[in-house]
């Protein structure tokens, strides 16, 4: 029961106050790319959740292994990245061998999802040295949900940010960046003036 509650709390935090996308400003290039293809968004987020789970558990294990090492700050992220590469290659192989139609349809989101998990899970592992398995799982779940929401909101906002009434200089990406900035402001209201 406590593990479940812990997991839920971690997930909630990852969506709200510790929202890594809006509060940390991490990984928006991936969110923007995902938002341009709203159809694959669900599968994308699912992969992000899955890979995040594996990466944060892996990161947890590595973290305990090199807790005493002096090279930890340099070595750790590399190892996590290797972890993600391994996951990606494994997942791609499995999908290619077993579910080829599925791979053909959604294969292009696999690689960005894997890279994205590194982006999303390193901050977590760097910020917290001691964490439990349940909170890691909760974090992964919450991050997946946050990613889905963020990309969904941006996907819906996108057509409105290219209208003719806007000054030409702001059409498209600049307006999108301002949009993200203002939305991040709303999330900053949850935590107050505090660095991630």
């Amino acid at each position, binding site marked *: 029961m406590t593990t479940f509650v812990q997991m839920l709390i971690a997930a909630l935090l990852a969506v709200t106050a510790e929202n890594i996308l809006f509060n940390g400003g991490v990984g928006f290039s991936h969110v923007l790319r995902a938002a341009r293809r709203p159809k694959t968004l669900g599968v994308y987020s699912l992969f992000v959740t899955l890979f995040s789970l594996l990466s944060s558990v892996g990161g947890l294990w590595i973290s305990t292994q090199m807790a005493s090492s002096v090279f930890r700050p340099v070595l750790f992220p590399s190892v996590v990245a290797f972890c993600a590469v391994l996951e990606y290659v494994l997942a791609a192989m499995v999908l290619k061998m077993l579910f080829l139609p599925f791979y053909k349809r959604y294969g292009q989101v696999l690689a960005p999802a894997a890279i994205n998990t590194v982006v999303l899970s390193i901050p977590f592992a760097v910020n917290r040295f001691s964490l439990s398995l349940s909170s890691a799982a909760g974090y992964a779940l919450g991050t997946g949900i946050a990613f889905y929401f963020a990309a969904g*909101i941006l996907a819906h906002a996108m057509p409105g940010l290219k209208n003719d009434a806007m000054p030409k200089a702001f059409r498209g990406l600049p307006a999108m960046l301002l949009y993200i900035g203002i939305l991040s402001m*709303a999330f900053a209201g949850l935590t107050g003036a505090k660095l991630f």
Partner: protein
Amino acid sequence: MTLLNAKTPYLKKETSVSSMMRDTLTALAFLLVLPVARYGARPLAMAAVTLVACVLCEIAWSLLQSRSINTSDCSSMVTGLIIVMLMPLNAPLWLPCAAAAFAILVAKKPFGSTGHTPFNPAAAGMAFITLLWPQRIFSYFNPSAGEVLPVFADCNVETAPSPAAVLKNGLKPDILPFDMLWGVFAGPVGATGILVLCACGLYLFLKRTANWEITAGCLFAGAVMAALWPRIACAPLTSIKYELMSGSLLFCAVFMLTDPVTSPRTGFGRVLYGLLAGVLIMLFRRYGAYEQGAWFAILLANAVVPQINSLVCGDRRWGEELYEE
């Protein structure tokens, strides 16, 4: 005699965008009456300075774009006055100007001015200055101390915690019900006079300038949250009273949420939006970093509006049969 070949319709319309904005401006101006009567000319000075700042920002942007200057739709003035209403009276006069500048230059004009803004500009402006100068936004002067406020100069007066701050600390605010209704407590300029606010809201709803569904949804959600999860140990009704009347919930529900540009376009969607905003405002009060973050909640709710619009399809109305011509 030359006759024109003008386009239809040929009658004078009773409502236009500028007349709607003027309605809102009138309602906002009424909110200034009580503070002016009580504390002298400072609210007026604040409003005037902010309006000038708004118009200057508009003009500056038009010059930058090398377009003709046009402020006839008054929407930037509405934004400016809303910001003034949410300020503490003892705030320096440049503070609302900074909020207005952000609202117009960042949250409104780049997105294509009125009709295309994805976020309520006033909410964005308030959020910006709340993050940059939190101490100044939430330090309200004590109205019962009887000090005289200077008209233009920065003032250094005795401050008192607002009921919202008291609630945030888990205590029960101690204000007479009569004072609460007439706004004799520490709080923003325009958001304390509950009775005047209600009257202004009614005026806007009757004029159909604002949509009552949103306000009703927001207040309902706020009341339910306050009754079921009170922040202080008291009866549900007391909790509802303090939660709804403190801070700027009522003001935001009447003036900021009902902005037609940033709210959903179907009746059901509006109710949904109001409920969502109410819940978010209460959550921000409880878990947010500040004593109240209605404008942050409004920004979040605004972001969901396109989803609500596409979710609730407004193409066909239910329960209606149409005859064939």
